[in-house]
């Protein structure tokens, strides 16, 4: 029998999960999730002009490199973005990771640009400014997604309870809630940078949890139809089904993890946001795999054990009523004999 099926293991799993979820909620509540570049508040130095840099690529490249060197000499630059106006003008933004440049620095940058000798600088009309950008939370998006996921959970429970078993429905529901919350908690605890796509990861976590748990429950449903499986103890039967579905669960998990790791590696090369969001998705795969193979079967085994015990209790032959019946028959026979 699987050693994770014991009451002690289940208790430890639940306590660890609960502790992680509470700690994650605490961190997320007080510090929030670690924002990625799309949701981070940042300071940006903007070098813009009236349109020359969109016409002359060489000029723009020289200006961009010149400013980058000047700014990086004093501040850490996280990202450099060039944008073109749809009417006229271009803008190079240097996103700073730390430090706040003062007016003197901006003035010196402006002066050094004017004196840089880059061809066309006199006609470009370059302007330098510093902006502070503050992120705004997407409240409607978050609460509507939460409601959507809540309704999906209810549907999951109802469907699994009808098509599989009520106990499996309850276990799938617990697993789905557990997986989404634990994924978010781990992301908050490990301070993995995450932006608005984190809500997409939460939805992915829910869908993946449904898939992996259904693979295990599908196997259990097929196994428990066989008479020989009904004869063995609940924990052993559940454990057997989990072992049989291990390969299937791992097929999906490994295939997804491979895709996620590959995208993550690409992210490490082309953009950190892609890497961090793939790390979040990988957390989701790990959590859902763990819960479908260890936690959910352990919860369902406890339920099945109780359900089997109840069934056995109901199926027991009622000796007391037999004796009562015998007694009544005897007394009625006695009465008849007396009357005769």
């Amino acid at each position: 029998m699987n050693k994770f099926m014991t009451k002690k293991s289940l208790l430890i799993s639940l306590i660890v999960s609960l502790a992680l979820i509470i700690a994650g909620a605490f961190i997320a509540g007080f510090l929030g999730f670690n924002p990625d570049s799309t949701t981070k508040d940042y300071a940006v130095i903007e070098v813009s002009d009236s349109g020359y840099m969109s016409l002359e690529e060489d000029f723009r490249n020289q200006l961009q490199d010149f400013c980058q060197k000047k700014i990086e000499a004093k501040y850490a630059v996280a990202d450099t973005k060039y944008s073109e106006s749809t009417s006229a003008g271009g803008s190079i933004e240097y996103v700073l990771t730390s430090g706040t440049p003062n007016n003197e620095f901006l003035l010196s940058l402006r002066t050094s640009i004017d004196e840089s000798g880059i061809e066309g600088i006199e006609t470009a009309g370059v302007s330098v400014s510093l902006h502070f950008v503050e992120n705004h939370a997407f409240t409607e998006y978050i609460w509507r997604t939460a409601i959507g996921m809540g309704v999906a959970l209810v549907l999951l429970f109802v469907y699994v309870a009808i098509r599989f078993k009520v106990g499996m429905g309850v276990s799938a529901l617990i697993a789905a809630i557990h997986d989404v919350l634990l994924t978010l908690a781990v992301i908050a605890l490990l301070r993995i940078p995450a932006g608005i796509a984190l809500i997409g990861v939460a939805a992915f976590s829910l869908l993946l949890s449904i898939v992996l748990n259904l693979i295990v429950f599908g196997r259990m449903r097929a196994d428990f139809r066989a008479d020989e499986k009904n004869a063995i103890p609940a924990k052993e039967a559940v454990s057997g089904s989990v072992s049989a579905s291990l390969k299937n669960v791992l097929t999906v998990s490994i295939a997804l993890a491979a895709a996620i790791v590959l995208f993550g590696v690409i992210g490490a090369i082309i953009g950190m946001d892609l890497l961090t969001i793939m790390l979040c998705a990988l957390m989701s795969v790990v959590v859902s795999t763990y819960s479908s193979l260890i936690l959910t079967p352990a919860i369902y085994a406890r339920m099945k054990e109780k359900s089997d015990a109840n069934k056995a209790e109901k199926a027991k032959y009622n000796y007391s009523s037999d004796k009562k019946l015998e007694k009544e028959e005897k007394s009625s026979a006695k009465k008849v004999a007396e009357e005769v």
Partner: protein
Amino acid sequence: MGKKKSVALIVIVTIVLVALLFISVTPSFYVSTAEKFNSLLSIVDLGSDLGGGYYTVYYPEGVISQSEYEALEAEYNEAVEQAKQEVGEGYTEEDVGVDNPAETYLAYKGIYLSEDICDKDESGNPTGEDFAVFQSEFDKAFRAISSRFESKGFIGYSIKLQDDYTIRVEIPYSDEQANELFDRFAYSGTLLFTDDNATSPNEMKGDSAHVKGAEAVETNDGGYAVAINLTKQGRKEFKAITQAISSAASESGSSSGGTLYIKVGDEVLTQATVSSALDQDVVYISGAYSTRDAAQTIACVINSTLNEDMIFDLQLDASQIFTLAPTMGEYAALIIAIAFAVLIVAMFIYSIVRFKGMGLAHIYGFMTYALIFVLCISLIPMMCVDISGVIAIALSAAIMVFFNYYAFRNIREEFATGKTLTASIKAGYKKSLAFTIDAHIILVLAALVMFLISTATVRYMALIFLIGTVISAACTLAITRFYLYMFLAQPKNKIAFCNLRREETEDE
């Protein structure tokens, strides 16, 4: 299935799949000097994280940018020089004729605040009653702008506060004109239904007492309209003003009717021709919208004006609109597509090695799944892919692969028990049928619910997953099985073709 029929089917299916693959992934090229071939993948709408978009910064009236300030400064300096030349060193401000921006504007972070909206305190910070009013109106404007963009449901958009008193908005590329969208979403003031008659205007207030809400709807002729839901009182008053407008039009001899303007503040949001009195709960304004997006923009503005907390009295200027590079990197979408191709090839090799003939059927099945998926993603107007959509595609593909493998394993198990190949295939598919259907149904339900309730990224992600799951169900249950029968007609040793083995029994 006969061998000849099988060969014909294999040829036809292969040609169709290759043709679909060609139109799906071939890089764009010019067919003639004027016409260009664009592959299906190249026309997929992408979120701003993978495909970039536009951004603008809304400047409220009384707030200007650094470059505008510098232009005013240059103008002032030029005027001073001219005054010096004309009057000499003893020139006065009147001689200059232009306000000194250093005196009329206050530098605040990366912007400049006009003295019309604030005073300067001792430490040089903005203060005063006017400034308090400005702050209050700006807060309302920020709420309204946020609400309008949020209800528009863009995939991967963002709204940020820049320098405390300007609003930076980033949106993905769409069919809608970005400048029109940014302008309309900046309209300030209350909603008004009017004929704009200067002498005796017929008007109806567009508040929550008169209007329940607005939405974009499709019309019978394939176009789009804005449907405005009226309250009882709204219906009554709307009937009265449309009656008045149509009567006035017929009195003036117009056969087409009068014009009803729907205005937000001083700006005309939309307009409609009225030829008779309209007495209905829902009013449809059509004719001007070729896309749902355009109609939805009008509906979003109307809905935000129904909330009193979002009615603001502040002019917002979004004159500069910039193109925005993909936030995940310039070539993120292309590299992700290549990564998918690498994973698919790896999966194909594994399938062939592990399941041989069944693996070949799986490859054809998966190709069909992938190509139908690409068709849906590129041709369904509502589809848009961002990084969450990429994850949904990966999950959907993994499910499709899993259920095919699951059926093949069941076929193997059945064959191992001693059944014939045909009986094993039938029994294997029968064994996996219930679970495959159950899993797909619950996933479709979950995705459908999230698509209907959620917005933005998750809405699009759910839609992608929903379509992927439906295609996966069809390909797993029917198409791959059909391909398996199609290929099985060819080999002499069908058992070896499917890489099947009997259970080994010990001889006594």
